[in-house]
């Protein structure tokens, strides 16, 4: 069996096993109790056992063809995730409009490679449109909006 990517594909099951083991330890810490009077940790323990077990078997038998290689494009994922994280953090502080505009701009211009004209126009229209839809029409209570506060 040829393995062009070495053993790297075993990383998936390894993570599964790691999560399972951490959960096992956590469940024991919650106290297992007994079968007749189960503690809060017993059920998570059983489930974590199942997870660890399947992970261990997968570590041996899993088919390497299931795995996609990591590419240079994977770096874009990190960028996308970081952008989203900044969006959420900013949203909690300054409200919806500004972070939404910036996020749309990032995704449209950088990831979508739209021309500036389109990206800017869509970002302005999109952030305002969705703000009106959620905050005004549907009555969702976004955090106090700094930009909308300037207008009113």
């Amino acid at each position, binding site marked *: 069996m040829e393995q062009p990517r070495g053993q790297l594909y075993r990383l998936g099951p390894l993570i599964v096993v790691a999560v399972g083991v951490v959960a096992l330890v956590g469940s024991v810490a919650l106290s297992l109790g007994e079968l007749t009077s189960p503690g809060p940790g017993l059920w998570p323990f059983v489930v974590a056992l199942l997870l660890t077990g399947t992970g261990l078997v997968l570590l041996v038998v899993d088919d390497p063809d299931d795995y996609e290689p990591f590419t240079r494009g994977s770096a874009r994922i990190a960028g996308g995730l970081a952008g989203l994280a900044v969006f959420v953090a*900013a949203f*909690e502080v300054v409200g919806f409009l500004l972070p939404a505009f910036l996020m749309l701009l990032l995704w449209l211009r950088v990831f979508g490679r739209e021309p500036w004209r389109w990206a800017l126009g869509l970002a302005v229209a999109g952030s305002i449109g969705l703000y009106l839809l959620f905050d005004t029409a549907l009555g969702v*209570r976004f955090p106090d909006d700094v930009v909308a506060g300037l207008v009113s």
Partner: protein
Amino acid sequence: MNRFRLIAAAAAALLLAACGGQGSEEPEAYPSDQIRLIVPYTAGGPTDIAARSLGTFMERSLGQTVVVENMPGASGSTAYQELLSSEPDGYTLSMSALPTAVLNYLTNDVGYTRDDFAPVGVITQVPSALVVPAASPHTDLAGLVAAARSDPALVSVGTPGATNTHAAETRRITQLYDVPLTVVPFNGAQEVFAALLGGNVTAGFVNASQDLMPLLESGQMRVLAVGTEERLPYVDAPTFAEQGFPEITQSTTTFGVVAPAGTPEPVIAKLEETMRAASADPDTRRGLDERYVPEQFLGGADLAALFTETEQTFQEVARGG
């Protein structure tokens, strides 16, 4: 995740400080802005309905918009945390439900205790009842207790939650009177009703609120005891106290309004006055369901006393359970 929230919170605090809060205004000016009334439970529930009736009255009487905001989650802790993180200026208030609000911090670390609240007043009090399905062989409380004592595994009592009043009070019956009852927590009173009708639990300990009434009227369930000191005018059943359980009077749910501790005294006084007027207003009373509005208005001091009393009552059970 945590760190981001911390940074966000810090930035928010800075921003607020830079803008200058509105808390420095003269107390006479209160209220000069809209008031947020947080509801710790979902829309459509009893707390929400009470909050909206009260909110309507407050708008009329204070001349400011009252925004009722539902913030369900963690038996109310999410809402209380939101309340306590806002300025103590009387513009953010929350509904609260006792004893749940107290049981929350007795059983788990939720980041607050009763000292963090400034109680304003009580809106409604909903008593609780021990019910059995029509087909049950137990016709009175004595029969149920005798059955439980004869076989400790026999009697199961469904409660609407794991850490709520009814579960805690059922455990108190076991502790104080040596009656072996198995508490079976469900997800809300509706599931308890279903389990009772299906014969899956022996009895249920639930609020005697509007949703129980049709099941009693149609004869599908009967009440063995009510958890108040006096009998109730709308439920034909004796109290626990009458049947030899004088301690079992702590399960009434009290719905009140609280502000964050540190809210100026005059603001609290003004709000308390408004609530007193609301509980005398016929329209509001109807909206709240007259049965549950206390005959004598209970203000901030009474609510504070209730907080203390509840804490003392359930401290033991919470530690034991």
